């Protein structure tokens, strides 16, 4: 096992990969180190995130991180979602990530924040 069972599993069978019809917020960003791209789509309701999907051309770590983040963001108040940080993801990913790959974990976080900012949901 290269990274962790969670990463392998989510890379091979992501649960929240795809498009969200009628999304309220869409944001996309690139990791300048590797050119990886992640796009997150959100449905917002009652000050919270009702649903989330991601798409992207990215490595296993980034893919697993985005999938976990979509899962963790769903059902959360916007404030709570904004408070999610790298440690929350690292704990769930269950892998030691080398410094050179840490941006693979954090890119989806950056994109989520961008999506919320784009619709003015972020303060």
């Amino acid at each position, binding site marked *: 096992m*290269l990274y962790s069972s969670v990463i392998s599993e989510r890379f091979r069978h992501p649960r929240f990969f795809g498009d969200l019809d009628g999304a309220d917020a869409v944001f996309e960003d690139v990791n300048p180190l*590797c*050119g*990886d791209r992640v796009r997150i789509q959100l449905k917002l309701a009652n000050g919270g995130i009702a649903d989330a999907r991601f798409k992207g*051309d*990215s*490595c*296993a770590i980034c893919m697993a991180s985005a999938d976990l983040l979509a899962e963790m963001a769903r059902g959360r108040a916007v404030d709570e979602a904004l408070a999610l940080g790298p440690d929350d993801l690292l704990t769930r990913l269950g892998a030691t990530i080398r410094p050179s*790959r840490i941006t*693979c974990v954090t890119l989806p976080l950056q994109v989520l924040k961008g999506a919320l900012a784009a619709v003015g949901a972020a303060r």
Partner: protein
Amino acid sequence: MTPADRCRGDFPILERKINGKPLVYLDSAASSQKPRQVIDAVRRYYETTHANVHRSIHTLGEEATALLEASRDKVREFIGAAEREEVIFTRGTTEAINLVAQAIGRTIKPGDEVVVTEMEHHSNLIPWQMLCRDRGAVLKAVPVIGDGVLDLEAFSRLLSSRTRVVAVAHVSNVLGTINPVGEIVKRSRAAGALVLVDGAQAVPHMPVNVQRLGADFYAFSGHKMLGPTGVGVLYGRRAVLERLEPAWGGGEMIKEVWIDHAQWNDLPWRFEPGTPPIAPIVGLGAAVEYLSEVGMEAVGAHEQALCRLTLELLAKNDDVIIYGPRNPEIKGAVVAFNVRGLHPHDVAHLLDQEGIAVRAGHHCAMPLMRRLGVVGTVRASFSVHTIPGEIEFLTKALSNLNLML
């Protein structure tokens, strides 16, 4: 005897273990490892000789100056330049290209045109982008066609009386393509344009003669050719250098200075402001000596054989997609590929577990990645110390990858 047979023992780093496995270093195109001869030259310089160059009236200063200028002579001979004044030391290829872009930039007018290619490393693209933006000039790019060669017909159509500069890689750092620089120079000159060749991936791997190529400028880096980091070379044709204003000002590049004006120094120092990277230049001299002793014809033949073997073995793996020309005769010492279903960074990470160092990502060539329709690629690249057994080890590791992730 291949170069590797005689060279392998010269590279102390090859004794290292990575993740408990012997290091298989296939990332020389990013930066080469250093033979003991280069490491010793730098150490000896610092231990016995170091002082500032050109202005010190003491023994150490004179010795350091002599060493630095001796490196210039070695480089001149190595690349076949006509005169030592045509060899300018920079901090690397990137700085060399920026130097030219800024010096020529002063003469560029709105509507002038610069031609690059779709396969350029960012270091031979961004300086020209910036120049065109600043001066209102137009940037055009020669398309990449087929399995990764330049569209020379399109190139001819891009040339016009407005073309001032053509900037092209001698060898692509991703595709490995050896571009027909002689032909490009001929056509550019007919259009009245200057030609800058990025030779970072050529000089370390094949015989290069700048006079035969005919380019006006030729840039390369020390650290990719067994030398230290922090030093590069800009070759410039004297006739062209003489009519250019210096790119940057400072000490060393002047002859006489008043408060409101100055007289520029002679070539090559006019383009070398500030204290140069003396120790890296001394190390580069040792690297040039080392490569000359092995012989660049032999280095080229050795690496072409490795390239051929890599292409052959990778082609046997149905999961591997190869980028760039399949003909090793027109290919430098790099092979780029992807493994179906796996991201290049994951492949590189997996190979690292086996002690294999490869490059993965966009290789500072994002427009080319877009052209290839990929986020990035894996790239294996070779040097004098690379042996066929390492290529076999790489291809074997690749066939087991899917089980590891």
